[in-house]
Structures are given as structure tokens and as C-alpha cells.
């Protein structure tokens, strides 16, 4: 009995080894790591929804039918750069992950950027905002898919200055993202003849903004720029309404606002806010079809945010590159170069391209939050008011400080 057991063990081992050697001949295995804030203030805009988006990208790629074996694992970086980098390291070293996706929180995103470069993996960032990812800190292994601070500043910010919002006061989240968004928006404001008359930096994940809002109020600035995100933005907007800032004639600039944020503020208070996104579920038949499939599999029935959509679209493009290469070379730079050489075209973001610095450019849309009477369903929240072509919305290559461009 015992010898039989050992024999079968040996056989099993032999088979596994054989399977391994077959796989390495034309390696068609891929492992995806969805790294996100799984439980904190950004978990609704990325989080488990991003893992689902990755899963759906695998299913829709059709690669499984062609003999590819693709897995996705997820990790919680808890908005801490040290945790993010140690998960990423472990993924590359132990789990043999090929591609890291999502990674909201610019602080974590920049830290992980270095790890992926060092390990020659692929990094498809969707959740982080900082334009530094494709600028001063660009990497040949990185594709920054969905949006960035430069784009937000040059769409929402520019529109507000042109509409007469010439003096600004910033409420800025006190970390890499807030700093980048404030910097990029300040540049736009001053370039368009406006000026920044003050600002206050608040800690990440603040629940009470009344002190900061009072300072903004007494500054008499025409526009209060919210250089924060997620729960911080929703709380600022809600409490600004409570303290009568908007009634007093000051305008709020929600520089970065996600679908789940608008939902949680409620249309009563959010109505009329202008902001920019690169994806909204209710744009056309294709986005609606995808969003319906997505929402069915989400626990709370929410349609995808632009970050989650970006994970799907970014990975879909990655799979196209792998399909074109015919196998997984496990060489990040090679795959990213392939991705850059192919124009992007997917159901969610439409046509675009990945620039040499890793920046994906596609159309940015200006939205306005609907009035409660205009909304026909629980997630019918935006109306489209304009669009900016990708090459005008994102950093022009001649202004990018990315070292990859100087070759």
C-alpha cells in the first residue's frame, strides 16, 4: 500500500515536471496581480471591482481558448507605499506575477513603479492620478492607462478659469497625488490669467473638513479647488454645501470625481458639479453592455468606475500584445514596447494610442452631475457636456520630462 502511494507521488511529480517543461517551450501562462486599496477610502473606485474587471478581461480576451493559462490574484496595499512595494516584490519573486494592474493612490503607485522596473515586469496603472508616472519618473515597463493630474487640470481646471473662476484656493490631500494635482492645476490657472490665493493641506482620509472649509470661505477665492479624491472629496463637497460656501457664490472645482463618489454624495448636493472622466458606463451600447455584465457580478450592483474600466481596457490591450507575440516572453520591456506599437481600440475607451512615455491617450469627457429630476435610475448620474481629444487633454510629448523620450 505504502509503496503504491510513493509510486503515485513519484508519478505525479514526474508529470508536473513534464508539464512544466512543455509550458516553457512556448510559454502561454500569465499571472496578473491586481494591487489596490481593498478596504479603505479608494476601495469602491478600484478595489474588488478592479479584480473583477481583470477577471472579465481574461474571459473576454479569448486567449484561454487558444491554450493560454491566465490567473489573477489580488492584494491590499492599504494606501501604504511600504506595504504596496513588499506585496509587489513578493508577487514577482514568489508568485511569478507578470503584470501588476490598477494601484490607486499615487504614493503607492510611484513606489510600485520602481519595483516593477527593477523586476522587468509590466505595470498597467489605472487608479493612480499623478502625471509623474509618465513624466519625471517614467519607466519603460509602465503604461498609465486611465487619467492623470495633467489631464484633470487641463480639462476641468481650464474650463473653470475660462468661465471666470480667476482666483483659486486649494484643499489638497497631503501626499504625492494632492501635490501633483495642485501643481498641475496651478500651472493651468496661472497660464490662463488666474491666480492662486491660498490653500491648505489636509491629512489623507479626513472626515471633518469644516475647519479647512472655513479657511477657504474667508479667503474669498472664487473657486475652491479640491485636490483630493474618494471619501475626502465627498466629505468636502457635502460639508461645503452645509457651510453655505456655494450659496455664497464660491464655486467648487471637484478636480477628480468618480461615479461612486457622486453616488455617495447624492444628487441633491452634487447636482451641477462639473468634472472630467475618460469613461462613463452610459456612453454607448458597448459601454452599457459591458457595465451591465459587470454590475451583475458586483456585490452591490454598481457599474464600473473609470478606474475599473481602465483595468479591463488596459489588460485587454496587454492580451492583444501577448497574442501578437504568440507566447509570454516574461520580459516586461518587450511586452510594453509591443503594446506601444499597436494602436489602442477597445469597447470602453474607444480609439487611442500609448505614447513612448507610457501615457495612454484617449478622449476625455466633461460631465455635469444631473439634477435629481433628470435622473432615471440609481446610477443615472451624469450628463455629457463636452469632450476634449486625447492629444489636447494629456501632456504633449515636447513638454514631458520623461527620459525615455530623449533616446
Amino acid at each position: 500500500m505504502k509503496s503504491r502511494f510513493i509510486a503515485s507521488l513519484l508519478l505525479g511529480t514526474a508529470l508536473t515536471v513534464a508539464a512544466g517543461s512543455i509550458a516553457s517551450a512556448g510559454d502561454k501562462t500569465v499571472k496578473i496581480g491586481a494591487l489596490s486599496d481593498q478596504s479603505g477610502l479608494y476601495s469602491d473606485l478600484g478595489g474588488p471591482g478592479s479584480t473583477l474587471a481583470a477577471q472579465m478581461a481574461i474571459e473576454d480576451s479569448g486567449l484561454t481558448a487558444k491554450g493560454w493559462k491566465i490567473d489573477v490574484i489580488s492584494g491590499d496595499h492599504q494606501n501604504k507605499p511600504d506595504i504596496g512595494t513588499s506585496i509587489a516584490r513578493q508577487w514577482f519573486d514568489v508568485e511569478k506575477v507578470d503584470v501588476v494592474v490598477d494601484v490607486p493612490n499615487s504614493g503607492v503607485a510611484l513606489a510600485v513603479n520602481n519595483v516593477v522596473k527593477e523586476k522587468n515586469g509590466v505595470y498597467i496603472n489605472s487608479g493612480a492620478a499623478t502625471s509623474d508616472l509618465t513624466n519625471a519618473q517614467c519607466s519603460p515597463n509602465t503604461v498609465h492607462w486611465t487619467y492623470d493630474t495633467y489631464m484633470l487640470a487641463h480639462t476641468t481646471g481650464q474650463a473653470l478659469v475660462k468661465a471666470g473662476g480667476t482666483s483659486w484656493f486649494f484643499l489638497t490631500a497631503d501626499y504625492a497625488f494632492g501635490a501633483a494635482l495642485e501643481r498641475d492645476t496651478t500651472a493651468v490657472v496661472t497660464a490662463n490669467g488666474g491666480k492662486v490665493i491660498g490653500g491648505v493641506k489636509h491629512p489623507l482620509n479626513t472626515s471633518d473638513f469644516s475647519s479647512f472649509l472655513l479657511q477657504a470661505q474667508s479667503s474669498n477665492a472664487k473657486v475652491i479647488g479640491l485636490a483630493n479624491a474618494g471619501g475626502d472629496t465627498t466629505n468636502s463637497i457635502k460639508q461645503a454645501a452645509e457651510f453655505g460656501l456655494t450659496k455664497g457664490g464660491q464655486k467648487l472645482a471637484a478636480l477628480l470625481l468618480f461615479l461612486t463618489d457622486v453616488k455617495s454624495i447624492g444628487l441633491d448636493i452634487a447636482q451641477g458639479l462639473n468634472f472630467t472622466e475618460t469613461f462613463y458606463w452610459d456612453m454607448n451600447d458597448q459601454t452599457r453592455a459591458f457595465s451591465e455584465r459587470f454590475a451583475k457580478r458586483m456585490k452591490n450592483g454598481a457599474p464600473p468606475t473609470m478606474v475599473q474600466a481602465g483595468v479591463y481596457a488596459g489588460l485587454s490591450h496587454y492580451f492583444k500584445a501577448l497574442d501578437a507575440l504568440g507566447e509570454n516572453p516574461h520580459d516586461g520591456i518587450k511586452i510594453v514596447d509591443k503594446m506601444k506599437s499597436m494602436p489602442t481600440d477597445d469597447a470602453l475607451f474607444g480609439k487611442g494610442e500609448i505614447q513612448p512615455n507610457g501615457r495612454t491617450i484617449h478622449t476625455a469627457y466633461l460631465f455635469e452631475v444631473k439634477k435629481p429630476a433628470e435622473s432615471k435610475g440609481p446610477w443615472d448620474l451624469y450628463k455629457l457636456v463636452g469632450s476634449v481629444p486625447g492629444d489636447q487633454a494629456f501632456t504633449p510629448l515636447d513638454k514631458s520630462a520623461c527620459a525615455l523620450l530623449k533616446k
Partner: protein
Amino acid sequence: MQALYAQLLVGLINGSFYALLSLGLAVIFGMLNIINFAHGALYMMGAFCAYFLLNLGGIGYWWALLLAPIIVGIFGMVLERTMLQWLAGLDHLYGLLLTFGLALIIQGVFQNFFGSSGLPYAIPDQLRGGMNLGFMYLPVYRGWVVIFSLVVCLATWFLIERTRLGAYLRAATENPTLVRAFGINVPRMITLTYGLGVGLAALAGVLSAPINQVRPLMGENMIIVVFAVVVIGGMGSIMGSIITGFALGVIEGLTKYFYPEASNTVVFVLMVLVLLVKPTGLTGRAA
């Protein structure tokens, strides 16, 4: 100068939440000797309870102020009966670990169903709008929060320090066996006390629902600050926790004005300083 007055007032508003929560903690610690780490989760449950009452039962804010603390208080009493009572007489660490675990479980369950971004809860019609105080625009609702929580805090203090029932309670913590000999049901009294402390947390939750988002993690950040408040005020001291709650709200408010980057940490810096100088807290007696 005007801005300073405004910041002081805003500090008082935050202070009312700190006071209500730390009061509940102080009551529970004083009477049960349990460090109730589930307090933040129960505070969150109070807010969710108000949300459910409104959206499922059509019951508005005013009834929620009464019902949510009762419902969550009963939940707390069930916790006490089924779990916490077995820890009586054991080291503080056991109570801490149990309640911390409970908090993680409760928050996890809510997060699983409601995500993290929060649900909207409107300010009741009667308390909408605001008034101009000359130095600032004060939303009526915030003024209400300060006055209401001050009244609740003082009433609780009066109940425990000045009434016969309170005297029994305090006696029961000193010497339960002797109090039982007088024919008083001590275990039931302890259960009710835990219910009261939990009810206070839920009440704070309802009060904060219209201001903050109703979200599963709303208690998580709060609880750490509130523990610092309790430590500074002196563990188990009722008046100490009320005064420290309001005072720290004001200090935090001033920090947000003068050096906003430190507003997250100022409470803890104070805590360290107080512990260095007076380890029993400002109003605490030596154990």
C-alpha cells in the same frame, strides 16, 4: 481674530462627538472594567441604523435619535450576555482582544455589503439652513449637535454621579458581592450599563450621519482618537472624559488652523505629554 472664533466653534462641534463617544467608553470601563474596542463599530451601527430606519421603515431622524440607540443598545446587551460577561475578572487584555475582534468582524460584514464610499443621509428639514453669527456661518444642524450632546453628556453624568441608581452602580463596581447581598441584581445592572454605553455610541452615530457619510469605516478613525481622549481624561472618569472630549476638539480645531498637517497627530502628542507628566490622566485617580 474672527477666523479664530470660527475655528473654536468648529472645534466644539467635533468635540461633542469625542465627548459622547469617550463618555460611553468611560462608563463601560468604569463599571465593567472592559476596554471596549468595539465602540467605533457600534457608533457606525448607530448611523447605519438611522439609515435603515429611514430607507426601509420611513422613520425619520427624530425617531431614529431615540430608536437607533435602543436597537444598537440591545445588540450591545446581547454581546455582553453572550460573550463579555465571561471575561469578568480576567486581565484587561482579554476584553480588549475580544472587542477588537468584534469590531473587525462587524466592520467587515458591513463593508462586504455596503462598500466603503458611504451612503447619503439628509439633514432633517427642521435643522436645515444656517445662521450668520457675524464671524462665521453656522449650519443650524451643527449648533444642534453641540447643544444636544452637551445635554446628553450632563444627563449621563447626573445619572451616574448624583442618583440612587448611579450610586448602586458605583457600589457594584467597588464590591459586587456586598451589593448583591443587599438584593440587587448586579449582573443585570452591568448588562444595562453596557447597553447604556453602547447606546451613547449609537446616538453619536445618528448625530453624525447627516454630517459625515454613513460608511462602514466611519468609526475606525474615530475610535483611536477617542481612546486618546479617554486616556488623557483619565480612564473611567465620567466628567473627565466629557471635558477632555470638548477640549481636545477645540485644540484639534486650532491645529487645523495654525498647522493643518499636524491635525491628525496633535491629540496623540498631547496624550504622550499627559502620560509622561500624569500617568493616571488629568482627572484620574491612582488605581
